[in-house]
């Protein structure tokens, strides 16, 4: 039995080698994508485009403006002189926030009447907008405290001490890279195998395989092995990139990551085989596997949008997509350094997914090959 599995695997490898473009893509794509996106994207909001309208023109107002210019989160577009400019900059999307210091600000501040500072914020991008508002508020607050400290004593209050764990500076890259590895490997795994069996059907070589004494289980095993090897190499490459290029701290166990990756890939590859055996056409197989893995992988896995924030029904739907579990595993092992004592529910889910994916693949395949 093992002999025949290896024979099918060897055949698959020879076929793969004859198609160097696809082979390059299979090896290069995941590493390239993680490299590109790990470098390119982040959720951090910085360089918020800021315009300032100073109608007060006093040393106090200039002090406040300097406070805004000092922060790294804002990029000053320069001073403007009329309210109409503020409107124009916001409507055209040139500025994301406009700070207006009305006349009489310094006088009110000195008299403790609360010098008014207005901020016009482009709320179209709610995420960036709420972060810019809180940065602006903090900037004004810090400036106010400094200003106040010069004049009198600070009143007592509560000191909020807020710390972010696992990622002290809240650098979004540290959270993105482990998530990206999971999402990309999900898509790659299903893509690697979704074409392989559909192609044999389309070219009519499946009948030839069926007429040989090879058992369907052996066909699937043989088809799976080369892609599993490719997937694991991809996985290793992306993890190394994460650790050495993006400097994501790796606190957990490499062995655990290896084993869970194996489970995850088995499930993903099985799913690909299932789809391609089911529809028998490369066109439909690719569409189906994209539909199942691509957008759900990005949008329902907790990669960019927290699952906690979703409606309960959707949280239930997200349970069906394995990328969700694998993201918890990669982030847990990378950043939190947790082990099987915390991750066992996810590992259990991935095991079920692997078993399910392979069973479905064998089932459908069996049925299709029956005379």
């Amino acid at each position, binding site marked *: 039995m093992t002999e025949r599995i290896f024979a099918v695997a060897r055949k698959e490898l020879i076929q793969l080698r004859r198609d160097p473009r696809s082979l390059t893509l299979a090896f290069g794509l995941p590493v390239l994508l993680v490299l590109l996106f790990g470098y390119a994207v982040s959720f951090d909001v910085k360089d918020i485009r800021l315009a300032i309208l100073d109608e007060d023109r006093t040393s106090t107002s200039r002090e406040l403006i300097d406070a805004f210019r000092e922060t790294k989160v804002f990029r000053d577009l320069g001073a403007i002189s009329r309210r109409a400019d503020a409107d124009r900059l916001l409507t055209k999307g040139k500025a994301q926030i406009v700070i207006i210091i009305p006349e009489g600000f310094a006088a009110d501040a000195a008299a403790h009447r609360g010098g008014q500072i207005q901020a016009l914020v482009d709320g179209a991008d709610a995420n960036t907008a709420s972060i810019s508002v809180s940065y602006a508020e903090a900037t004004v607050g810090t400036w106010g405290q400094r200003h106040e400290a010069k004049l009198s004593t600070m009143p007592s209050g509560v000191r909020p001490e807020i710390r972010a764990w696992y990622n002290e500076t809240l650098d979004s890259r540290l959270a993105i890279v482990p998530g990206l590895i999971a999402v990309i490997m999900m898509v790659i795994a299903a893509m690697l195998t979704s074409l392989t069996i559909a192609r044999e059907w389309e070219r009519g070589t499946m009948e030839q395989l069926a007429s040989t004494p090879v058992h369907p289980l052996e066909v699937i095993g043989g088809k799976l092995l080369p892609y599993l090897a490719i997937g694991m190499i991809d996985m290793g490459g992306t993890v190394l990139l994460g650790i050495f290029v993006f400097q994501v701290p790796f606190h957990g166990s490499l062995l655990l990551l290896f084993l869970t990756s194996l489970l995850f890939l088995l499930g993903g590859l099985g799913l690909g085989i299932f789809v391609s055996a089911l529809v028998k056409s490369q066109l439909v197989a690719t569409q189906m596997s994209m539909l199942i893995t691509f957008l759900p992988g990005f949008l329902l896995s907790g990669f960019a949008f927290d699952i*906690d924030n979703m409606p309960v029904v959707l949280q239930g739907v997200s349970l069906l997509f394995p990328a969700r579990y694998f993201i918890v595993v990669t982030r847990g092992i990378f950043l939190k350094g947790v082990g099987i004592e915390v991750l066992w529910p996810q590992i259990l889910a991935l095991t079920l997914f692997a078993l399910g994916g392979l069973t479905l693949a064998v089932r459908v395949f069996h049925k299709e090959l029956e005379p």
Partner: protein
Amino acid sequence: MSPGRVRELVRKEMKQMLRDPKMKRIIFVAPVIQLLVFGYAVNTDVRNAPTILVDQDNTPTSRALADALTASGNFKITERSSRSGDIDQSLDDGSVLAGVLVSPGFERDLRAGRNPAIQVLVDGSRSNSANLVRGYALRIIQRFGTEQSGQAPPMTADFRPQVWYNPDLQSKVYNVPAVAGVIILLMCLLLTALAVVRERELGTLEQLMVSPMQPSELILGKTIPVAIVGLIDLVLVTTVALLWFRIPFRGSYLLLFAASLLYILAALGMGLLISSISRTQQEAFMTMFLLFFPAMLLSGFMFPISSMPPAIQLITLINPIRYFLEILRGLFLKGAGLDVLFPKLAVLAVMATVLLLLASKGLRKKIG
């Protein structure tokens, strides 16, 4: 070029596309379902963040602080404990996003004016939510402190933010139109990228070649049906966005239609170009994936463009999704008119023209 032949080819393509009920579902039902599902998923507002409270003070003041946190609607206390170690535990297993620790003596210190600390720990492995939650916690605790200390806050500055277009700062009004744009692009690419390669692999391309059909007619005949399907899909998803998700629409429908048409044409050009340079369906699919993936991530949809490295920001200038999303946002949220949107529309028009020209050149070579 004969309009009659083009019409016949369009009719044949439409028939072929819609004959397969599976395909019909993929074309017309999948986008709507995708938008319904993902429209709910793309939410970055943090409401009711699961929080563990460790109240070691257990006084009326510490309870008032807990109330202040939950009353804001930003925090929901899902776990309580008296041991600070439980915060670590709960953050580790991911059951909470934040932990709040009130140390013993909090009330006493506050009364005595000793500036007691409240510790808040947030899960930095979910950096996006953690960032927002940090801001909420900071604001709520500071305000609580000034209220409790009984002293009037120092009225140095009075900060009054005024949020335009989206006063409640709901993320869905930004994200739902974006998802619609991404779904439409994916659909158009999937339909065209494999179109010509498929005919070649199946051997039907030779049949078309021996017919009196000219290459330009063939290209039009392949483009028009997908453009029609794309526009129908766009109407469907826009309806869902407006009626189901209640996204406000403040602009002109005519402009939306014009922008969509240009966007769809650019997408088709991209798809046909892929089809013309690929030899097999597998290759076409992989190339499509290789293009679509960056186009989606570098469009400003999930990740702000202004935070990308300068070189990458330059790359986003050739990304049609970026322009379409800017137009959508302008139309939906800002009610922007032609004067503001004209440059973006012009860029889309140029992109569509260039891509379609390149595609037809490539296809001509392939067919001729």
